[in-house]
């Protein structure tokens, strides 16, 4: 259930009028391509790097892969402010958890915390305009626009991928894709996904999928960033558009 906050859209003789200034002034949106997959030794997260404010590219080298614990990371999509705030809160709780319980948190714990924050705050995180298709009446309502993919590795459970879509439900998946660019790569992923890929195969899969998403989605672009999570820890990869996303590859 969502609360109504007044009229802003109308059905006139010349069609539906929609107030496009529904974003909070200055709000930065992550029109995005993000994904995370399971592979033989753990998980891989991947994302493009474009951040937009309307049509303007506010940042072309954004890092949408955010660390919340040693080997628990998340891919953020939706409002940059909201998802950063949520990731910061989860990060605080996971660090607290590892100190109090003298044990690294599992990916499940991170998933539970993310879900609680996204579900309980879904009505207050962001103003979004909804227009009734039949009446043309628009409602400005507050809605969380955080679409988050969580991927983590721990020695006991291995690699795990969880997805939290807009409403705040929690889904455990073999692999997960999200953001506006993901709509273009459902076919690619379905055709090319295999269980138990090697690290090299997994990287190729994620890189290939994001390359397509960036190619077709106007709101995605820039570089491709990856994070590989295994027993060895977290390793970042970077792939640049100037070489058609072939390199430089693994970084620090």
């Amino acid at each position, binding site marked *: 259930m969502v609360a109504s906050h007044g009229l802003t859209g109308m059905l006139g003789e010349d069609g539906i009028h929609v107030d496009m200034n529904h974003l909070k002034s200055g709000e930065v949106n992550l029109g995005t391509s993000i994904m995370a997959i*399971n*592979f*033989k*030794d*753990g*998980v891989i997260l991947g994302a493009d790097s474009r951040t937009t404010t309307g049509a303007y590219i506010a940042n072309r080298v954004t890092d949408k892969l955010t660390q919340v614990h040693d080997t628990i990371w998340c891919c953020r999509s939706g409002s940059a402010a909201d998802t950063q705030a949520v990731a910061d809160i989860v990060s605080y709780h996971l660090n607290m958890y590892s100190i*109090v*319980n003298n044990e690294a948190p*599992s990916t*499940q*714990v991170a*998933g*539970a*915390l993310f*879900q*609680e924050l996204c579900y309980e705050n879904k009505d207050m995180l962001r103003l979004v305009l909804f227009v009734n298709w039949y009446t043309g009446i628009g409602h400005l309502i507050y809605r969380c626009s955080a679409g988050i993919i969580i991927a983590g*590795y*721990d*020695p*006991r*459970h*291995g*690699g*795990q*991928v*969880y997805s939290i879509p807009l409403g705040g*439900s*929690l*889904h*455990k*998946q*073999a692999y997960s894709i999200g953001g506006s660019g993901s709509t273009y790569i459902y076919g690619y992923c379905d055709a090319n996904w295999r*269980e*138990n890929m090697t690290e090299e195969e997994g990287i190729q899969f994620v890189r290939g999928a994001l390359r397509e998403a960036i190619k077709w989605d106007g709101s995605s672009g820039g570089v491709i960033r990856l994070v590989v999570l*295994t*027993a060895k820890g977290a390793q970042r990869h970077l792939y640049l558009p100037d070489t058609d996303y072939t390199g430089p590859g693994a970084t620090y």
Partner: protein
Amino acid sequence: MTSIGTGYDLSNSVFSPDGRNFQVEYAVKAVENGGTAVGIRCKDGVVLAVEKIITSKLLKPGANRRISTVDRHVGIVSAGLAPDGRHFVSRARDEASSWRSVYKGPIPISALANRLGSYVQAYTLYSSVRPFGVTSILGGWDSEAELAVDGQVGSGPQSGAGGKVKGAKSGGPGLYMIEPSGLYWGYYGAATGKGRQAAKAELEKLDLASEKLSLHDAVKEAARIIYVAHEDNKDKEFELEMSWISSLEGPTKGRHEEVPKELLEEAERAARRALEGDDEDEEEGAKGNEQMEE
């Protein structure tokens, strides 16, 4: 006690000059009068047992339970003031439930022991409260299975997660004893209440650290130990109450449950036999001595 009447025992939150809190020590005295309670931790589960002294013939046997379930996988038995024990269990349930609401899964036994220890300790700090008149034994089983997040949908790759490390720490039994001071330790075998000395002596003989004792044998040993501990209090009748938590493959599937009636009765019969055997040995021994003197 030499310090009685010196004024340092009138309030919590007041140390005596030699650094003691007498109110806490008096609380321990209350525990020492309570029915004996024991806990045994084995590789495949935990057993809790308590000696309930029958204070009136009008009490209904089997009613008035002293072992409580805190969460599906945790049980508590306490010795001392029964109402304090119930309040303590109530707090334990709140802690377990609060953990579930935050982390969407069962609370680890170690974390529950830590929270309860902190709670009990707080009752030693303020002049407006008295310490808990109970020592509680907390037993439970941390699931060895991969736990889902409560309410999650889906189950990941069909082939399972990649990169699992063999032999990584995963679940198992937990047994803790929390004292009126808030002090708590993890144990292989724990005993408290009136017969604790005899019970501890018996527990030490079991070599629990080697983890060779099975859960079924532990049930029998727990019953026997309560019977042994009752020997010094023979004039009073008692009822034995026992509960257990097994591994997921075991009889309770990781849950805290009453020991089934048949097994409880079997264990009690075995306990009585063992005690009668001891008595005969003693009589024989006595005869032997007489013969030696002839």
